[in-house]
């Protein structure tokens, strides 16, 4: 930054700073401590903002200025990051921030009534902080607790299995200003709900065993086994892991990096949560193995903000592994050095996209980069980086021990191995099911105890929606690809409401970088609201089809490209659910025209026929305005 730029920033700081009190200087000292802990390094801005917000409650203009000064970044850049993420607030939102998970599965379990009830008890409107600055209540995207919902985040700590009784008690606790840490501990209990184990969930390996096997094989031998295994990425896209690792290894750079993508944001997915909770050593082994294969000595776990409750536990486990010689310098006494750092996200679905994730890891808003160049050559800090899903890394650890041929014998020729499925919705046994690839949707439904099933979404909000006649199809990259989210809807469910929930999810989560996605997702949400408000017309359905075709081709990244797939499927396969909502076969405005004159009528005191608008188009056709009848 130029000297003049620095001075401008400095004078802005001065003008924004509230006149110094003792409280201010204490806050400034706390901010300075956090900044120092992060080496005043701007690439750590997302972590800095979260920690400062934890202390301060919100990110005030003065706080942002202090952080900008501390890391030597322009203030606008700091503000741009602070404003991008849902979990950062640049206005005070109360000592208690309650966010109801608003995935369709939470809705099916009654989260809307619970939220209304909590707002009622606390005398506030959703989204607004209470007048005494005590509490705010709002919704957030799926928190990954679909098998034990409805769920919410209280000051970013996960609470599951909400009931009206829990909500009653929560309102009391908040009014009595009981710290969230002192709330009943069973509220915070998160179940694994593992319902079917296969080779991964029954691995039987000791921590570090897979890593030792990988070191024995050497990088070339290891890559050979990964290649023979035909392992494909478990995040959903199914890219060949060996190709990714080899390209990264072969790319020139000052340093290579491994990133574990634990930003499990797809609505209805919670398998990575279980792997991190109960199979963390397999994941860490997998990361070390990836680091060994590509020649990296540093790895990051990008943990979604919704899984904040896991952070301390995972940090502790990493420290234990360092002590046991399973992480850090000279691992297993074999001269291999690799360490891992956990970065916490802050509520942005888009950061599951690998280049957006890297941007976030560098302290910036999570907006996808233009690709190519791909992260394998130009990733974190412009260096060769491999980004792998949590499950992929755990499977790589398994392959390091058991070998590629063994793995390849499981699943189908094009989709080898097993897949973890997060099953939720209308099933008797929601939870994690590990099946070999090639399993039919019907088999999964039977295992989970689904009855009278109407529809299944097979890749969260961003993938296909199957109707009953398609349940014989196979879960595999070549037939029904999935990142692991299986949401089940029985015949009592209104698929229109499913589509509307997804549309609002995407409108909220679009990063806003490209117009087709930013506008398209908002248009779809508005059109579905129009139908919900009994103003629907067939033209609105046509418009959604058009928006689907446009966004497919013109969006910048996968979010826009996949945001309309489920909607398109539902429009095609569950048309009656939409047709039921059509007000008339003709065009229908999206708002009440007569009500749109309400303010002018009030201000002029008029109530004559000319001061009203009917909704009957033909009544006025060709007539003079003043002759129009109410």
């Amino acid at each position, binding site marked *: 930054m130029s000297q003049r730029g620095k001075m401008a920033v400095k004078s802005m700081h001065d003008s924004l700073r509230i006149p110094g009190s003792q409280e201010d200087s204490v806050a400034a000292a706390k901010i300075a401590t956090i900044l120092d802990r992060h080496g005043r390094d701007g690439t750590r801005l997302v972590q800095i903002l979260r920690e400062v917000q934890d202390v301060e409650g919100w990110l005030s203009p003065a706080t942002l200025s202090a952080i900008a000064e501390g890391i030597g970044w322009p203030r606008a850049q700091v503000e741009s990051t602070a404003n991008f993420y849902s979990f950062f607030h640049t206005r005070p939102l109360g000592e208690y921030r309650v966010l109801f998970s608003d995935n369709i599965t939470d809705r099916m379990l009654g989260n809307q009534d619970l939220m209304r009830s909590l707002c009622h008890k606390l005398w506030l409107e959703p989204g607004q902080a209470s007048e005494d600055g005590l509490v705010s209540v709002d919704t957030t995207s799926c928190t990954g607790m679909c098998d034990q919902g409805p769920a919410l985040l209280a000051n970013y700590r996960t609470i599951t299995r909400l009931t009206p009784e829990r909500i009653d008690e929560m309102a009391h606790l908040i009014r009595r200003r009981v710290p969230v840490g002192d709330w009943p501990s069973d509220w915070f209990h998160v179940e694994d709900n593992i319902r079917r184990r296969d080779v991964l969930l029954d691995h039987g390996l000791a921590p570090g065993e897979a890593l030792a096997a990988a070191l024995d094989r050497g990088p070339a031998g290891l890559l050979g086994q990964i290649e023979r295994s035909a392992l494909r990425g478990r995040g959903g896209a199914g890219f060949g892991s060996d190709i990714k690792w080899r390209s990264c290894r072969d790319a020139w750079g000052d340093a290579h990096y491994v990133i574990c993508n634990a930003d499990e944001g797809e609505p209805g997915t919670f398998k990575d949560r279980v792997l991190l909770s109960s199979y963390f050593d397999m994941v860490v082994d997998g990361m070390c193995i990836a680091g060994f294969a590509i020649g990296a000595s540093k790895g990051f776990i990008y943990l979604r903000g919704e899984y904040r409750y896991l952070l301390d536990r995972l940090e502790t486990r990493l420290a234990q592994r360092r002590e046991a010689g399973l992480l850090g310098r000279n691992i297993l006494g074999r001269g291999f050095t690799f360490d891992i750092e956990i970065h916490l996200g802050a509520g942005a679905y888009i950061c599951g996209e690998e280049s957006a994730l890297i941007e976030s890891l560098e302290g910036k808003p999570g907006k996808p980069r233009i690709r190519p160049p791909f992260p394998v050559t130009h990733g974190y800090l412009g260096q060769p980086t491999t980004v792998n899903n949590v499950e992929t890394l755990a499977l790589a650890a398994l392959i390091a021990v058991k070998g590629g041929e063994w793995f390849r014998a499981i699943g189908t020729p094009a989709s080898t191995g097993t897949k973890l499925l997060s099953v939720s919705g209308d099933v008797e046994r929601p939870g994690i099911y590990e099946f070999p690839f090639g399993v039919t949707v019907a088999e999964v439904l039977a295992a989970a105890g689904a009855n009278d099933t109407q529809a299944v979404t097979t890749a969260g909000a961003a993938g296909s929606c199957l109707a009953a006649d398609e349940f014989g199809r196979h879960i595999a990259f070549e037939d029904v690809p999935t990142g692991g989210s299986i949401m089940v809807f029985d015949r009592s469910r209104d698929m229109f409401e499913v589509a509307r929930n997804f549309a609002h999810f995407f409108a909220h989560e679009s990063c806003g970088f490209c117009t087709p996605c930013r506008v398209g997702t908002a248009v779809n949400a508005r059109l579905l609201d129009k139908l919900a408000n009994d103003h629907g017309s067939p033209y609105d359905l046509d418009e959604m089809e058009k928006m689907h075709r446009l966004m497919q081709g013109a969006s910048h990244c996968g979010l826009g490209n996949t945001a309309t797939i489920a909607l398109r499927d539902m429009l095609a396969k569950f048309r009656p659910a939409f047709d039921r909502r059509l007000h008339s076969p*003709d065009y229908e405005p999206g708002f009440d025209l007569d009500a749109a004159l309400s*303010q*002018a009528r009030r*201000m002029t005191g008029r109530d004559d026929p000319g*001061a009203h608008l009917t909704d009957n188009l033909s009544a006025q056709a060709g007539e003079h305005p*003043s002759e129009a009848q109410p």
Partner: protein
Amino acid sequence: MSTATQDAAVGTTPRKLKVATVSLAGCFGCHMSFLDIDERILPLLELVEFDRSPITDIKHCGACDIGLIEGGVCNAENVHVLREFRANCKVLIALGACAVNGGLPAQRNHLQIADILQQVYRTGHGLAEGSQIPNDPELPLPLNQVHPVHEVVKIDYFLPGCPPSGDAIWVFLTQLIEGREPALGHGLLHYD
């Protein structure tokens, strides 16, 4: 467009198409831009006949083939006129930024119309003593918000631009008159 194409267009048109145009909450800039087709208005008049339009000063539109709407919808009269056009025109086109998106007049949308009326007629500077908000039934009431035309009636085509250039309007209309799906390529549709 070449003379040959113009001739072909004339040759294939069995009768003159009827065209109506109107400016709602607009500035007439799109109409001025329409006139920027200059001398091409003469071959156009070989193909079309104007019904209701500022060019003809006809007050109500009869059965038409093409309707061009400039401007958004800001008051009750705009709604009536727009509905009249929709009821009478086979093809209705939103012409220019205000018709397509609400445009400049829609900048009032973040304010309450009640506050605006209060400020302009009751509490603003330089008003006569006892000044009142006009309430004559002859005056159309303003809507709470300004809307793009497609939020009030079905619109068949959108021709964006502030204003769309005379060339864009010419190409769009002649394609439509020739019975083709209008498509403005690079140069006629751009952001600067």
